[in-house]
Structure formats: C-alpha cells, structure tokens
C-alpha cells in the first residue's frame, strides 16, 4: 500500500505545483490570464490521464498472456525477484 502511494503523491505534487502554485507566480502582463488558464488545464488533463492509467493497473483483473517462449525469455531477462 505504501509503495503504491509514493508514485501517487509524487505525481500529484508535481502536477499540483504546476497547476496550482505556478499560476500565482506568473508576472503581470497582457497574457497573465491566458498562461494561468493554460497551466491549470495542462496539469489537470495530464494528471487525470496519468491517474487513470495508474489506478487501472493497481488491481488488475487478469494477467498478461505470454507465449511460452516469451515467458522463458522474460524469466531469464528479468529474473524472478521483484
């Protein structure tokens, strides 16, 4: 459970910095609002995209189907310890 949280916290904080903190630091100018909108939208979309893929893989309902050849190759390549 804890390891699962590491990546979650990391990316949430990363996109949170970009989307929530950075807009306050944009200097005043004619494009301030536009850049703020861009940052917020970008971070929201990208974070959501990452989150969906992360959550989907957290509790997989089925495992990958490998050919026996590929399975043997991967067993050698990646060994059997996590």
């Amino acid at each position, binding site marked *: 459970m804890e*390891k*699962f949280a*590491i*990546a979650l916290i*990391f*990316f949430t904080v990363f996109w949170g910095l970009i989307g929530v903190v950075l807009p306050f630091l944009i200097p005043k100018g*004619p*494009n301030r*609002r*536009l850049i703020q*909108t*861009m940052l917020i*939208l*970008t971070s929201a*979309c*990208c974070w*959501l*995209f*990452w989150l*969906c*893929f*992360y*959550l*989907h*893989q*957290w*509790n*997989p*309902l*089925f*495992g*990958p*189907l*490998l*050919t*026996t050849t*590929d*399975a*043997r190759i*991967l*067993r050698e390549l*990646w*060994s*059997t*310890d*996590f």
Partner: protein
Amino acid sequence: MTLCQLFLQPDAAYACISELGELGIVQFRDLNPNVNSFQRKFVNEVRRCEEMERKLRFLETEIKKDELPIYDPEDNPDAPKPREMIDLEATFEKLDHELKEINTNADALLRNFNELTELKHNLQMTQGFFDEAQAHPVGVLEDMAGEREIELGGQTTATAGMKLGFITGVIPRERMVTFERMLWRVCRGNVFVKQADIPDLIEDPLTGEKVHKTVFVVFFQGEQLKNRVQKICEGFRANIYPCPENPHERRELAMGVMTRLDDLTVVLSQTQDHRQRVLAATSRNLRTWQIKVKKIKAIYHTMNMFNNDVARKCFIAECWAPVSELDRIQLALRKGSEASGGGTVSSVLNRMITREQPPTHHKLNKFTQGFQNLVDAYGVATYREINPMPFVLITFPFLFAVMFGDAGHGLIVSVFALWMVIKERSLKDKWRTQEVWTIFFGGRYIILLMGLFSIYTGLIYNDVFSKSLNIFGSSWRVKFGDEILNRRDIDTVQLEPTPYNYSGTREYQQMYSGTPYPFGLDPIWQVSENKITFTNSVKMKFAIIIGIIQMGFGVFLSLWNHLHFNHRYAIYLEFLPQIIFLACIFFYLIILIFYKWTHFDGLVSTQAPSLLIQLINMILLSYPTEPESSRTFYSGQRGVQTALIIFAVICIPWMLLGKPIYRIIMNKRRANYSTVTNHTENAEHEIDEQTHENESTKKVEMSEVWVEQGIHTIEYFLGCISHTASYLRLWALSLAHAQLSEVLWQMVLHIGLSTNGYAGSILTFLVFMPWSCLTVFILLLMEGLSAFLHALRLHWVEFQSKFYKGEGYPFIPFSFRLLLDEVPIEG
C-alpha cells in the same frame, strides 16, 4: 465595442484616415450602401490608383522577364499625401512610356537584325551555288532537259529559248522537303532547286523563335513559272531576298550587309543596357511604390464610405471601435489633423448608443491566432459571449494526443513544428503561393502543442514506434517453472494477477508486485497476447471520463455566460436542470469507474461489475441477480440509483416547461404594466428593463418559444448520451494508430532487423526507407489529419454545443498591416 461617429474636416480627412489605417483598430461602416461604386465621391482617385497599379504590374513583369531581383523595403512606408500622388503618377507615366519605347525599338532592331542575318547567309550560299555551277558546267548542263543553259558568272549565253530567272530565299528546314515536292508538282518538274543548310540557329523575324533554316535557289523559265514559284514561296512563308545577278554587285551587297550587321549589334547591346539600367533603378523602389499605392487606394475606398455633410462642410464617418482603444483613436485623429496643417477645428469623435449587435473582437497574438481560427471556423462568437479559445488551446492538442499517442511520432511532429516556430521570420514570406504549406505554417503553434502532448501520451501508453520502454522495471515477473513452460501442448501462459496468496497453498506464486508501474503502461503488456483487451478497458474508461468532464465544463461555461448577460432566470431554468441531469447519471458513472478500479482485484474478478450493464440496469430500474457482473455491488445501491434516476427524470420537464412558462409570466406582467399604470414614463422604464432583459423589443410569439425550448431540451438530453458515447472515438483512433504502427514495424522494419550478419545490416539500411516513408505518410500525415479532424469535431459539437451560440460577425478593422498581408506580394 462602441459605435462612434467621426466628424472630419475635408483637408484633414485624408491624413486622419491614414493614421487610423496605421493604427488598425476601427472598422468603418458603409454609410452609402445604395450608391453605385461609380457614383461615389472619390471614384476618380480610385481610378487613378488603379491606373498606377496597372503600370506597376507592367513594370514588375518586365523586371521579372529580365530576372532582376526586387528589393523589399526595410521599413513600412507611410501613405503619401494627396499632392505626392500626382508626383507618383508622373513618375510611373514616365517610366511606363520609356520602357514601352525601349521595347518597341528593341523589337524593330531585332527584326532588322534577323532579316539582315538571313540575307547574309543567303548571299553566302548563293555565291557558293554560282561558283559551283561555274566549276562544273557540264554536269549542270546535263541535268537540264532541253537546250536551256544557266547564266554563268554573268555571261548570258544565248539559248534557243528564254532566259532563266531565279528566286533565292530562306525557309525553315522542316518545310524544305514539302516545299520541294510542291514545287515539283506545281511546276511539273520544270524548275531546278538547289539548297544549302544554314549551320547556325536563326531567330525568325516574325515568330522570334530560333530555328534551323535552309537557303534555297529556284531556277525557272518564263513569267508563268515565276508567278507560281512566288505564290508557293509566299504560301510556305519562305522569306525571299533579292539577289543581284552580277557577282560584283553581290560582293558589294554582302559587304554592306556585314557593316550594317555590326552596327546593329552595337545598337542592340546599347538598347539592352539602357533597359537594364532603367529596370534596375525601378526594382529598388518597386515594392515601396506598390505599398504606397495600395495604401492610397485603401484610404480612398474608406473615404468613399463617408457621408459628405455639405451644410457643416465636413465628412461624417461611422465606425466600430473597442472602448479600451478610444484614447489611441483620439490621439491618431489629433495627429492627423496636425499633420495636414492643423485647422482651427480638429476632428471630433462622438460615441453613439445603438441596439445593433457590434462585431466581435478578440485581442490575439501570433500564438492564439491559430486556435481562434479553429473556433471561428465553426462560428464567430456572439458579441460578449465567452470565447472557448483559451480552453481549446490546451484541450484540443490534448485530445489529439490521446488519439495519436506515440512518443516517437510525437517527437518527429514536435521537431517539425519547432523548426517552423524558430525559423518563423525567414519562413513567413516563403512559398506564399503554396497553399498546403501556408496552412501548415499558419498552424505551427497548434502542431507544436499537439506534438508535445503526443510525446507525453505516448510515454503513458508506453508506445515509441510501437515498442515499449522499461524505465522503472516492470511490476510483473514470470514465476512459472520449467515443467510448465517446456510443455508442448500449450502455447501461452497467463500470469497471476492477484498479489497475495489467496488460496493459502504452496502452488501460488506472486507474479504481480502489487505496485503498478509508476508512469504509464507496464512494458510487459507490449509483449503479451492480450494487450488489446487490457488497453481497451483503460482507454475506453478514460475516454468516457474526459468526455463527461469536458461536457460538464461546457455546461459550467454556459453558467458563466448567463451570469455575464444577467439572465438570472436562465440559471435556474436551464443551467440547473442540465447540470443535475449530467451529474446524476454521468458523474455517478465516473464515481462507479473509480470505485471499480479501487475495490476489485484479480481474486474477485468474476464478480467485478460490468459498468455498461450496471448503467443500463440503473436506467431500466431492473436489478437482476444472475450474471454475477450485473449484481448490485455495494449496499444501498438500489436506493441510491433509484433516487438519482428520479432526480434526472425531473430535470426533463423542468427544462422543457421552465423557460416558456417564465416567458408567459413576463408577457402578462408587461401587459399589466402598460394597462394599469397611467404614467407613460414609468411604463417605459419598466418596459425598457423587461426588454433589456428579454433582448427583444416586441412581444415574443409563444409557439416559437415552445418549439425552440422543445428542441433545446431534446437536443441536450439526447445529446448527453450520444455525445458521451461519441467520446469513445478517442479510444478507437488510438487503437487504430497503435495497430498501424505495430504492423509497420512487424511487417517492414522487422525484415531488416531479424536478418543476421552483414546481409542484415545492408537489409536494415534498405528497409529503413520504405518504413520511414510509410511512417511519415500514413502514420504522421494521414493519422495526424484524422486525429486532428476528430478532435476538432469533439470540440465543435460535443463541447461547444453546451454553451456556445456562435452567431456573431468578426471585427475586421481598417488596417494597413492586414491589407498588405492579405495579398501576397509575389516575390
């Protein structure tokens, strides 16, 4: 945006308009729409400008003919004053006349030169004939039938019959054979033809082309034959030249021709030099003049739109201008008045109140211009409506990237766009006539964003040219023993998805670590047989989630619109039912998706609810117990879902009946006010307020309101469901792209990569070309265009139909910069 009236002094008018043109922020209205363009006040000036443009075009073609470079002006030349226009006209007239003269002279000289050249060759060849004839008199005599003899060297030999005449001339070589045959047939073989080819290419005096020519001499006897030969020569368009019979005279003529040719060559070269000098001088100023003339013409076109008030002796102009720019406009007017010798009365700007819908003006820069074009292509925003462009700026490239999702392809697209952006200045004016290029160049920022987002989504899909990257280490391990993997009767094994020992037995092996791959899709899926089944699930869920969120966002933007226009009633009667419906059914669906992701794992996979079936059952209010995936999966689900359905269904009549009933009530109230109150001023006040709120000055037809509201309701509620499903194209296109990419790799590049040895390296080199060509044309261009189109459709229909009316007209200011950019100056 405000409607302004400008009162301009006649002398200052020109200068003021010139200043406003440089500023480029007002849009003039045509105050004389019924006047024929030939009856307008400044039609003569416009005609003069067109004359000048015609002359400039002629000069430009002449310069291009000589392939001289045309210099672009470094700075922007100002519109010249009316007096300068006369000077310009005189200059152009002089240049035009001079050039035309040079051209006609050169033509005449050239024609003369060519004739003389032909004559020279003619004389040379005939000299050759006669010398030959003198040397071989016997042979020639034997050729002749009869007692006739040829005149040899001027000695006329007495013959039994008549004297021989001859005609010499020059004819193009191709026609020679047919010419001879015709002569033979017509003159019944009674003529003698000798010919010799001219070795050089001669420029034909009439056509101006360089052709091979032949000199011929036709000998005949008698007047009749002479006429026939002449007619045939004319028919074949042979150039006949007189040739003196006397060899002395011939020699003198030949020498005269040589000297004349030499003189002509000198004159011709001098004429060419003169022409070059004139054109070179012109080419330096050509562009500046063109810009100046364009500006003058534009100013006079604008002034044609003004109303000439004779009584007050000034011009009245009406224009739309942004309120924030009024100061700058005043400044420009003052500058113009001063520049034209400042009269005592300067030009006046007067704001007018009007009920007309002003044009829509968005402040844009080169980055946002491209995206605004995408939005405007569907419809220009209604005046003061919310502009979807700042949101489209990010969501459009993002949705494109979800469909395009390949980091390698995204990298190529980004590099291409980056090149266009960095080299903006130098590329701006290149290839202006290639429309495909201008489209790509105009959208360079869009393409850049699309590429960058594609790299991100490609990394999350873990797809780089259809291969995966293993950066963090896969979460899956193969823990089958040899006894399973070496069996002959099975082809595939499936890894165990549950990360803990659920059966309590020894045989369980933990093959999934319990922690998902930290960034994106695990690399093991790329090599597994059921990759598509896995990715389908997550891509579809994401597509639905992002679709519903985008639609919800659209509905909230409509709230913003209602707040801005102060339509309080619309918030309660339109926004609320819309958002409640969306939330009850579709936001609930999102919650279910997240619930399923977090509460079901490999152990209970057979009981995991099928979300689609659950949604259908929710709407049908049926709760079967049989297929495990259709059972309720949390306590209280029946109650919650029934409640949500009831709320959702209430929204339908709420939206359908709310607004029309409100209208009826408003109409009644207005009617009451106008009859009950005796003070007409009060009534007008109230009526004004109501009409201001209801945007109409006359009583609204009730049947129209009912029909319109019915349409809106059906559109929204059916749309919610169909648009949600429509977002599944995000999944479909990304699947297609991934599969195409994989096919290209497996079928094309793999051939080279899987061959061993030196042959393999050569094969890889050869195979790379078709692979890269197919990648660029099919995957980047075709798929890119397809994803672009679908992302655009999602924005135009699914997103914007929730809040965007798009019934405005664009603000097109009178701006010199726009004018000059519009018509690409061929260069």
